[in-house]
């Protein structure tokens, strides 16, 4: 093996701690030396300053909202029920049926997510729990990746939601927190590289509703 080329397959197996067949003395020495240098370098790396812990805690304390609830306040506090986007068409249909059966004139307190499923567009509800965020929006391939084009609304528990009509097809998106921080959807089933070191979430919309998120 020429020294300017890489290691042979057996040298890699040796370095991986796997059985190998044949290894020349030179290859063995080179492999041992690389591993030893890496260990030596690791031993000389500076350690992170434990003062970092306090810096993090100071930042965290500033960002922490008043999460404590007193007494029975939770009884009257707004509550959010989490559900995945795939259930939106089903829940909306159920809610519509309830409304249709209910006596007229008593629907003022019911707020429906405007959901419909037609052949080319499906309304999809996005949701992100981010209690410390000041603003959250959804930027994706369906709105030109414009920050703020689809702003989300925060509830009392810090869960942000937004509903948007998406054409049938595959779409990519991320949440944008405080206008600058891009984060993928933690509940998405698929992600792809965004080309900038991060990940885009993928949602697939079919003619009869959400196929996959």
């Amino acid at each position, binding site marked *: 093996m020429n*020294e300017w080329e*890489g290691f042979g397959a057996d040298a890699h197996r040796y370095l*991986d701690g796997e059985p190998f067949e044949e290894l020349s003395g030179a290859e063995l*020495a080179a492999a041992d030396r690389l591993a030893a240098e890496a260990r030596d370098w690791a031993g000389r*790396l500076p350690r*992170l300053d434990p003062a970092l812990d306090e810096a993090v805690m100071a930042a*965290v304390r500033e960002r922490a909202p008043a999460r404590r609830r007193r007494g029975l306040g939770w009884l009257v506090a707004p509550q959010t029920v989490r559900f995945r986007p795939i259930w939106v068409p089903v829940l909306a249909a159920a809610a519509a049926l309830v409304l249709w059966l209910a006596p007229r004139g008593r629907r003022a307190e019911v707020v429906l997510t405007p959901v419909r499923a037609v052949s080319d567009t499906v309304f999809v509800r996005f949701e992100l729990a981010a209690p410390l965020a000041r603003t959250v929006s959804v930027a994706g391939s369906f709105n030109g990746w414009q920050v703020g084009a689809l702003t989300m609304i925060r509830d009392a528990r810090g869960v942000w939601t937004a509903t948007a009509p998406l054409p049938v097809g595959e779409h990519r998106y991320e949440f944008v927190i405080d206008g600058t921080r891009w984060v993928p959807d933690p509940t998405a089933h698929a992600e792809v590289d965004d080309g900038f070191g991060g990940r885009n979430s993928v949602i697939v919309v079919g003619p009869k509703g959400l196929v996959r998120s």
Partner: protein
Amino acid sequence: MQPSDGTVVHRVLSGDVEQYRILVERYRAEFGRYAVASVGDLDAAQDAMQEAFIRAFDALATCRDPDRFGAWFFRILTNQCRNVLARRRDTVPLEEVDPPGGARADEGLERGELGAALEAAMARLTPEQREAFVMKHVDGRSYEEMAELLGVGVDALKMRVHRARDALRSLMGALR
């Protein structure tokens, strides 16, 4: 006995923010060397680690498996380290690295100098190769641990490590 990650996450989400310090201490120690080795600079590593902890706190409610907070946090940290490397703009893709010529890098070098040569060579790796090599040979993790932390298959990780070793051997020129 230290509480589990899941217990700590639950306490923090319930309003006891000070409990977060347990996770900070735990994973600053666990992943600190990885951060320093990945970005190659103590100050940048501290910034990446601090930002990762703050981002993790912001998104804590979205951590789907709090008992595996460490793996979830590690991916946030990995992204932060990659951002640091990307911002530097001096990372040269492996394909563009010129084969070394002239004198071999280890001729006449003392051990510490060769360590510096290793560090310089690592700066030429792609971010993915660098993080895989660091996890394998600096942190001493198994491929299974790496797969768990990175969410990448063992075969793909082996490929990254192998290419990193080949590149390092070539760049350093002397690891025969």
